[in-house]
């Protein structure tokens, strides 16, 4: 029968996590708990050089002195850090040259996720570096990249093989002591990706990494470092899903981007971790620090589609250090049931003639809370800095919340900062209008949500946009008809 708002709410509540399954892969897992010994053991396990071990220990010691922040608009039970295992690796260690060598169960997992390697390989120009739990198990297209001098590998490998390069940049954007979770990550990060694009090179393909959280009680501490040397260009994609489970899983990643003079980095994320069930039980805690630094005339674009996690706490930021540098942030954050998201960006204008754009789209349903938190800061020497921010919220039903917390700090009189915000609601009238034109309620919601999100979806690389659109639909539609 026809739609009422009451029914829509019910439909949204009954939406179950589609990727809720668990793959049993043999793995080697450290005992639970965190201490200097564990930090050293992680470093040793990964055959890291001495400086890295010391770097981790510095972070660990700093972390011990820090307190967990509580200023975000989210409520959750604080993790017990002694009840987490800090290292877990699939134990079939060797790297694979061909897909046939990969654990068939793992391949099956990817197939169920709709991201089989086969498909990925066929998608022209996508190199995939897959992180299952903590260690990379497959890397493709490496050769093509190698010919251009591009380094794209796991961060563990990079620490061993390109030690000087990693040492030069690691922690320069997000220092070890930056914040509580960044410090924790610095101490115990298990793996992640490293990417270096040499001077003047335009990376010929989209680089992508799929992350999975797959071991019960295993915290996931990814570390990503992307360095784009002068005049280079790279587009990096990151997408995540996780199996369904009861206990909360902590994810505290750090992503650092370095864009040197005239370089450009486009960093796109689709995040779909287990958001907890419809009673608000379980789900991933996603406390991430993402930041990029732009030198002269450099540009960094963050694009994110966030549909998962029970609690999200994330502000991909740009430090516009160089003159004429550009920072962009395009975000869609969807929350349903009891999900909580406090997300946004920081645009720090330090150089002259720096520009930044913020487009944030928040979609809340169920009893979820969706907050945008953004800082636009203009330093005293940042002549003619420009910022444009637009924050739009879309509400479904009357039990969810949308909040906007814009912070503006301008220390230079020539700064021009614009902020626009709107809040709207998917109304019965909109749904009925679509119904009357022959479009059922499920399709109507998808149409309205996609229309609302279009400005951001358009910023995603093609193959990701399709996936993102699919995610938006499954996150909100429920099991209608």
């Amino acid at each position, binding site marked *: 029968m*026809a*739609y009422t708002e009451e029914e829509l709410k019910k439909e949204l509540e009954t939406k179950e996590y589609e990727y809720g399954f668990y793959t049993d892969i043999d793995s080697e897992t450290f005992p639970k708990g965190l201490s200097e010994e564990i930090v050293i053991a992680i470093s040793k396990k990964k055959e890291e050089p001495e400086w890295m071990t010391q770097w981790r220990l510095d972070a660990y010691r700093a972390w011990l002195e820090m307190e967990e922040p509580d200023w975000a608009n989210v409520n959750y039970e604080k993790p017990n850090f002694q009840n987490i295992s800090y290292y877990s690796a699939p134990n079939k260690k060797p790297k694979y040259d061909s897909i046939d060598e990969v654990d068939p169960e793992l391949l099956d997992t990817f197939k169920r996720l709709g991201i089989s390697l086969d498909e990925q390989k066929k998608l022209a120009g996508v190199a995939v570096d897959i992180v299952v739990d903590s260690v990379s198990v497959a890397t493709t297209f490496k050769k093509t990249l190698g010919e251009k001098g591009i380094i794209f590998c796991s961060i563990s490998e990079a620490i061993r093989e390109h030690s000087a390069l990693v040492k030069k940049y690691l922690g320069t954007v997000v220092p070890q002591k930056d914040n509580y979770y960044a410090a924790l990550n610095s101490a115990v990060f298990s793996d992640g990706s490293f990417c270096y694009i040499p001077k003047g090179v335009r990376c010929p393909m989209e680089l992508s990494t799929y992350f999975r959280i797959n071991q019960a009680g295993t915290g996931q501490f990814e570390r990503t470092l992307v360095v784009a040397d002068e005049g280079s260009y790279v587009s990096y994609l990151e997408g995540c899903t996780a199996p369904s489970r009861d206990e909360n899983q902590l994810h505290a990643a750090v992503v650092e981007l370095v864009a040197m003079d005239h370089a450009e980095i486009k960093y796109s994320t689709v995040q779909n971790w287990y958001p907890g069930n419809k009673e608000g039980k379980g789900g991933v805690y996603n406390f991430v620090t993402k930041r990029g630094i732009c030198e002269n005339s450099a540009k960094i674009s963050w694009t994110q589609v966030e549909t998962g996690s029970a609690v999200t706490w994330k502000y991909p930021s740009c430090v516009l250090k160089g003159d004429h540098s550009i920072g962009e942030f395009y975000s869609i954050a969807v929350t349903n049931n009891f999900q909580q998201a406090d997300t946004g960006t920081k645009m720090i204008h330090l150089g002259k003639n720096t520009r930044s754009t913020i487009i944030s789209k928040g979609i809340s349903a169920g009893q979820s809370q969706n907050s945008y938190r953004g800082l636009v800061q203009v330093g005293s020497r940042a002549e003619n800095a420009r910022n444009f921010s637009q924050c739009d919220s879309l509400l479904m039903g009357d039990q969810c919340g949308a909040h906007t917390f814009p912070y503006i700090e301008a220390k230079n009189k020539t700064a021009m900062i614009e902020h626009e915000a709107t809040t709207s609601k998917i109304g019965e009238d*909109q749904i*009925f209008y679509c119904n*009357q034109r022959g479009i059922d309620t499920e399709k109507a919601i998808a149409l309205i949500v996609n229309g609302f999100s279009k400005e951001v979806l358009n910023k995603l690389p093609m193959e990701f946009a399709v996936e993102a659109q699919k995610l938006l639909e499954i996150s909100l539609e429920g099991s209608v008809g």
Partner: protein
Amino acid sequence: MLEIKDLHASVDGKEILKGINLQVKAGEVHAIMGPNGSGKSTLASVVAGKDEFEVTQGSVMLEGEDLADSAPEERAHKGVFLSFQYPVEIPGVTVTNFMKTAINESRKGRGQEDMPAKEMLALIKEKAELLEIDRKFLSRSLNEGFSGGEKKRNEIFQMAMLEPKVAILDETDSGLDIDALRIVAGGVNKLRNKDNAVVVITHYQRLLDYIVPDFVHVLYNGKIVKSGGKELALELEEKGYDWIKQEAAV
């Protein structure tokens, strides 16, 4: 084509339609007139299947089929079209994309394949010309920032695209200047044929100069209190609704 029998409908327990009888045959144009609050728009919504209204008695039949158990989208698939008095805005969804979705969903509902893109484009072009619609208009977000006239023209454009069996035009003339009215009415006239029917809901006689009805009905207090030919509309224009109210009160 459309047969409404002893239709009673209420909203929040309050009865708005109190026994409507109306028979519309293929090829006919019916006008429904009446003062504010008489139930004209409710009638349109009930025929289209809006859930807010509860049908307590009577029936709405389309080509002999009772629509009672059909959801609004199913009624649309069967050929019911409502031109809204206040068309809603859907930001970020272009007129073209919306039409493409509507047409393909309707086809799916009828067990047909999607319309090939080439055919769709040709159809859009043809119907846009019919209603003198600018190309640029088709890539704008649905109804967002549209003038009153643009919204109504867009409604008739959708009608042209969907080719319904019964089209109900709810106050399509409101908010239109004389030129827009002429274009919209001209469009409707071109879409009329022996196999479809049009029900025009209007306040004023003005629109009926352009879309000439075969029958005029006066709705008052939830009932059709008077029916006649097109001359009834002129009489109403001249004398207002008071005499109808008095007659009904007797």
